[in-house]
């Protein structure tokens, strides 16, 4: 079959001399889904920009880059403008970021025709959206982007990218801004356009499920490419094995024999703004020592409010809340946050952030050297033994920062750890590790409360998962029974 994209020895050199992508060769045939998989900094987005002709001025792109048989190396800006939309379409990571909030959704889709001087009827756009699974598109497309869900809006971007039926679509992390259970339908929509897809992602689970062939990127080089089955059964490169490690099951949990209840919420409600906003309607939750409880639900359903009530920094306005006396001791409840870098003090060396809970006045006073030693051993427990303890958070990766935050959360042996979306900024391998570390803390007797929208993560991690919707807890289910998906 004729390739729609052919790269031979593709090399990108930035004006400063840095070479983020060196000597990459791959080709994509029509209708195929080829995935580029790699950690952050592997060169994924640089390749995406090179394939679209969107590299910065002064960047040199050499080698062979053929789009639909036409050589695009050294193509003029005008030639690239004609090619974009006609020969290659693009689907970005965050659909909201790509939309002007002041214009209705249909304008954004129509732009795909208008920028090439073509006209299109609203009926045609509605038809395209319907075919990609947007119900009632004719009425909904006059709404503004912020009223659409991420999954719906991403479908609109796919409709725009495929408007002129380009034989190739580039999708750069198309699902990472969306809830995990929407990923499947977005990838289906991508394939439904009939174009070949270059799927760029750091999510190995997603890639293995959906791609026909996978290329592993590592430090700007394509170290391995093969079908998902071949890669999983016989990974050839160390980076492939590292990425695959994220899929390994967590070690089985020894069930804690004696569980002391720590926290009990019965029909707890929280209202803000003098009762005008109900953040939490009727929430039930219970957790004891050594337990891992997950809370799952769509954004805005009250997960974070529930967490703040559990942490004791927000008072319920109704219902019953019982907290064990051990939780009221300062430092008994320690948090882990969604933003790993922001959860560490930016101007402090990492060891100082990690050891901060030891400086609480109710704990025995330790010398600076003793605190540093305690921080170093806590850091080596979470696999950060080899980093410079004087490093600032901005010098570390997201995964490293989150592990440092976990080291801080466990350094004093807290009674309860409260984690708010601890893995949403992390790639697969780091997610696995964070899961394992939270498990370890539970083994040592801490109660662990995790809010996440990552279904598979909670399924692997938690003893129980509580689902929430519109400020209410719906049901407590053992993680063995995944939620039946209500929406398509």
């Amino acid at each position, binding site marked *: 079959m004729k390739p729609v994209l052919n790269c031979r020895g593709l090399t990108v050199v930035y004006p400063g001399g840095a070479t*983020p992508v060196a000597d990459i060769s791959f080709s994509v045939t029509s209708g195929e889904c080829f995935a580029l998989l*790699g*950690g*952050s*900094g*592997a*060169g994924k987005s640089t390749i995406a920009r090179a394939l679209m002709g969107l590299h910065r001025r002064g960047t040199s792109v050499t080698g062979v880059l053929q789009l639909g048989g036409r050589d695009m190396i050294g193509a003029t800006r005008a030639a690239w403008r004609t090619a974009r939309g006609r020969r290659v379409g693009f689907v970005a990571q965050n659909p909201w970021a790509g939309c002007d909030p002041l214009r209705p959704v249909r304008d954004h889709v129509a732009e795909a025709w208008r920028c090439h001087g073509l006209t299109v009827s609203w009926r045609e756009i509605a038809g395209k959206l319907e075919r990609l699974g947007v119900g009632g598109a004719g009425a909904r497309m006059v709404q503004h982007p912020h009223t659409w869900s991420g999954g719906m809006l991403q479908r609109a971007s796919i409709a725009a990218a495929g408007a002129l039926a380009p034989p190739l679509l580039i999708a750069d992390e198309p699902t990472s801004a969306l809830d995990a259970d929407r990923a499947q339908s977005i990838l289906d929509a991508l394939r439904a356009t009939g174009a070949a897809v270059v799927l760029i992602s750091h999510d190995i689970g997603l890639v293995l499920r959906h791609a026909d062939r996978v290329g592993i990127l*590592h*430090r*700007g080089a394509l170290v391995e490419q093969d079908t998902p089955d071949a890669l999983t059964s016989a990974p050839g490169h*160390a980076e492939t*094995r*590292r990425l695959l*490690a*994220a899929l*390994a099951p967590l070690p089985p949990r020894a069930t804690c024999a004696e569980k002391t209840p720590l926290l009990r919420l019965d029909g707890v409600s929280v209202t803000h703004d003098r009762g005008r906003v109900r953040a939490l309607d009727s929430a039930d939750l219970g957790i004891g020592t050594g337990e891992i409880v997950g809370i799952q639900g769509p954004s805005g359903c009250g997960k974070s409010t529930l967490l703040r009530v559990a*942490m004791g*920094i927000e008072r319920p306005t109704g219902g019953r809340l019982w907290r064990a006396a051990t939780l009221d*001791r*300062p*430092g008994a*409840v*320690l*948090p882990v*946050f969604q*933003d790993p*870098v*922001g*959860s*560490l*003090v*930016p*101007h*402090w060396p990492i060891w100082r*952030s990690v050891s*901060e*809970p030891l*400086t*609480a*006045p*109710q704990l025995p006073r330790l010398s600076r050297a003793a605190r540093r030693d305690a921080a170093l051993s806590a850091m080596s427990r979470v*696999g950060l033994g080899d980093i410079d303890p*004087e*490093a*600032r*958070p*901005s*010098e*570390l*990766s997201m*995964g*490293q920062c989150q592990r440092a*935050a976990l080291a*801080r*959360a466990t350094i*004093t042996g807290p009674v309860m750890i409260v984690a708010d979306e601890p893995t949403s900024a992390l790639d697969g*391998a*780091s997610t*696995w*590790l964070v899961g394992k570390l939270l498990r370890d803390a539970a083994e040592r007797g801490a109660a662990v409360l995790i809010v996440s929208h990552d279904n598979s993560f909670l399924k692997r991690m938690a003893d129980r998962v509580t689902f929430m919707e519109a400020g209410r807890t719906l049901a407590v289910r053992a993680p063995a029974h995944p939620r039946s998906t209500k929406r398509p």
Partner: protein
Amino acid sequence: MSALDITRPGTAPRAVDRRLLTRLRRHPSGRAGLLIGLALILFAAIGAVWTPHAPDAPNYANALKPPSLAHPFGTDATGRDTFSRAMNGAHRSIGAALLVLGAVFLIGLLVGALAGLAGGVIDTLLMRVADIAMTLPGLVLAFAMLGLLGPGFVNLLIALLIADWAWYARLARSLSLDARKRPHVVAARMAGIPRWRIILGHILPGVALQVGIVASLALGGMIGALSGFSFLGLGVQPPRAEWGALLAESRLYFPLASWLLIAPAGLIFLSVLSANLVGNALRDVAGPGEA
């Protein structure tokens, strides 16, 4: 290779210097700004104690002489050496700008952080006062103050201080409000760290750095403003030398002796340039996490 072995790909380990001054020195325009600034400070320091000619003593025989070897920037209407006067005035111009900015920075930081962190009545009260100070145009406020206190250098500094502090207080307040909600502050609260230590350790350093960057960018404007007031005769009183006052004097004799303009204007230009170069570089080198 174990799963624990996760380093950021693509970045070789390198020594990172975390001291702000070292990073500032390595920044190309920061380096140039620092060099010019140091030279000016040295020039001002020497000028405060020694000048080639007496800066304030008139010598009518020598009036309005063009530049020569003995008087590289000529002499003024009363025969005083322009270069000596510019040199002697340097510590007043630069020192005053630094003094006013330093005071504005400190007052703004303290008032703003107090308002942002205390909240409630204190916040409302302080910010309404700041609002009032901000609704009056700075220049008019300074004129009014000088009218009240009478012209004079110290009064000018007080007037500028009153005209400017509110802007920095506003900035410090909004930065403190933002910093208060950062995850690392919540984590410290949960760990039972006392409030004052969170404020000193977590919140103030970041706020101070950001307010400091804004203040350093305003240094050039401050030198200009001081010179402007002296130019109008509201600052340094004769026969004391100051760059703005020198510029004002040179205006009278411009058709006869245009060289009088060169020394004060050039020095004002250089100090504004230096302050802006350093301020810009500071903004660049303060890491994204720090500022």
